[in-house]
């Protein structure tokens, strides 16, 4: 079993080491042992976490549709995207990961909704703030604009279709 995890949350990256000793988990943060106590509420993936003696309620949810190791974690009224990579998978993924163009821009749906209009097609030149599409959610029409100038390389949605949060709408080259 791997015991060392590289965890990314917000701008921070940390190493969390989990070792089982006498049937209990021991935790080290960036190689320094840390006193924690974590207890699940029912089988709800909802935890009472004490770090030192500070008390936190934490709800953990695996992100569907993405890789196995991405979680949405709610704590203290905030919601975080957390990547957890064990050192072994990390080594493997480094070998396997294909090279993505550095200058490609992925335009994702900022919320779930209905694609009311698609305003560009592949090959169109776009400017910063160009209107790309209109997404309707809860009685409001929301403009999807282009964050920088470029050329539309792919359009992955059609008018009348629904999109979930984070679905790729377009690729700008």
């Amino acid at each position: 079993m791997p015991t060392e995890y590289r965890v990314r949350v917000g701008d921070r990256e940390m190493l969390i080491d989990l070792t089982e000793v006498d049937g209990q988990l021991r935790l080290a943060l960036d190689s320094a042992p840390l006193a924690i106590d974590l207890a699940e509420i029912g089988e709800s993936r909802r935890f009472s976490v004490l770090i030192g003696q500070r008390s936190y309620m934490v709800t953990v949810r695996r992100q569907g549709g993405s890789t196995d190791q991405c979680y949405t974690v709610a704590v203290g009224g905030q919601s975080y995207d957390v990547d957890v990579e064990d050192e072994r998978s990390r080594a493997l993924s480094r070998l396997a990961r294909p090279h993505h163009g550095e200058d490609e821009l992925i335009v994702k749906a900022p919320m779930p909704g209905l694609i009311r209009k698609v305003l560009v097609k592949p090959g169109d030149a776009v400017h910063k703030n160009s209107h790309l599409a209109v997404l309707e959610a809860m009685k409001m029409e929301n403009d999807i604009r282009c964050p920088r100038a470029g050329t539309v390389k792919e359009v992955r949605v059609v008018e009348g279709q629904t999109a979930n949060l984070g679905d790729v709408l377009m690729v700008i080259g």
Partner: protein
Amino acid sequence: MFKKILIAGRGEIAVRIVRACRELGIASVAVYSEADRIARHVQLADEAHLLGPAPARESYLDAGRILAVARRCGAEAVHPGYGFLSENADFAEAVAGQGLTFIGPPPRAMRMMGEKTAARRAMQAAGVPVVPGMVQVLASDDEALTVAGQLGYPLLLKAAGGGGGKGMRLVAGPHDMAAALRTPSPALSAPVRRQLGEAALTVVRASGYVNAGTVEFLVDRDLNFYFLEMNTRLQVEHPVTEAVTGIDLVKAQIRVAAGLPLGFRQEDVTARGHSFEARIYAEDPDNDFLPSLGTIMALREPQGPGIRVDSALFAGMEVPIHYDPIMAKLVVWGADRAEAIARMRRALDEYEVVGVKTTLPFHRHACSHDGFCRGEIDTGFVAREWPAIRPSRVETELAAAIAAAVVERRTRCRQVLAPSGPARACRASMWKVVSRRQGLRKI
């Protein structure tokens, strides 16, 4: 008194009306669209009737379907809540045409007040001050620019036929702040408040108004006030009034509609303490207050002294794409303004909605903002201050990281052992995670 009332709405206001009905011993009838089959108002009402498909025009805005249900279930009255058909005089007339009671003002008063420009002209004629130059209909963008030049900026533009705040555009999320500006605003002196009350009564008398309504005035820096409009329905923030007066406005609406006495006179209405309302919307404050959809994974709503929650939320609920994103209202009461703000802050800390982004983080940080706490806010507050007061997240990131790592480890452990191995034993040993030992680092 009525025996059965149909509630022609959804969400937290439908829940609120169900409660008033129950306290009066009246059977409540919920209506719902296909998207709302398990909604909270359906859970709580005595009866529930399907209206039609999810889009509002085929369900909550379809007067014909609503009246058909009312006939079928034997309701004697219809409460329209707010939004949807609540300010629609034609609907009110259609309800009466069926021999049922519309719980709201007379259609004539609704018509007069519904057309905002005409309303301002009528009130000007009745001697109520209106904003200079604000009785003009702006037919085109060009005309608007001309008038704007005469009046001077900043301006508040409202669509003449708009309802539910949808036609009003100044800044993202103005509804979040509106309630905070109300009863009693620290900016208003007692004499100004009394003058406002008298002007409101003039408005009510001039329009032949009966039942609950709200008269809105604009107040300028010199405490001059001007009639803006009248909302001919139960106000979204009515719980603020209820908290300080102790009067249940929805029960009062129902009593008046049934032809019963109110049970109190103007001079019996006394205010005690201070109240605030925070509206919980399914909107993401970090993404320009755009709507956020999803399923509520976990929910903890605040409780305890001085707290009222009117909520449509429940664990397992899917936030529907089709309707207004208001999910719940948190109303606090305190003996004074400082206690009310402290309560609001405490209640917001307790409020936990997991699975959907809400305006809770925005409210939390507004309540920690000195200017807000002193009442020094205006309609520009959100655009100006929110980017600056966004929460620091360092404190809770570590808890998130640790919990995710432990869940990841459990998952791997289960995959190795399950389905043949003793997955339970694996978990049991994992979940008593304790590394409390002397000499361990504390943070």
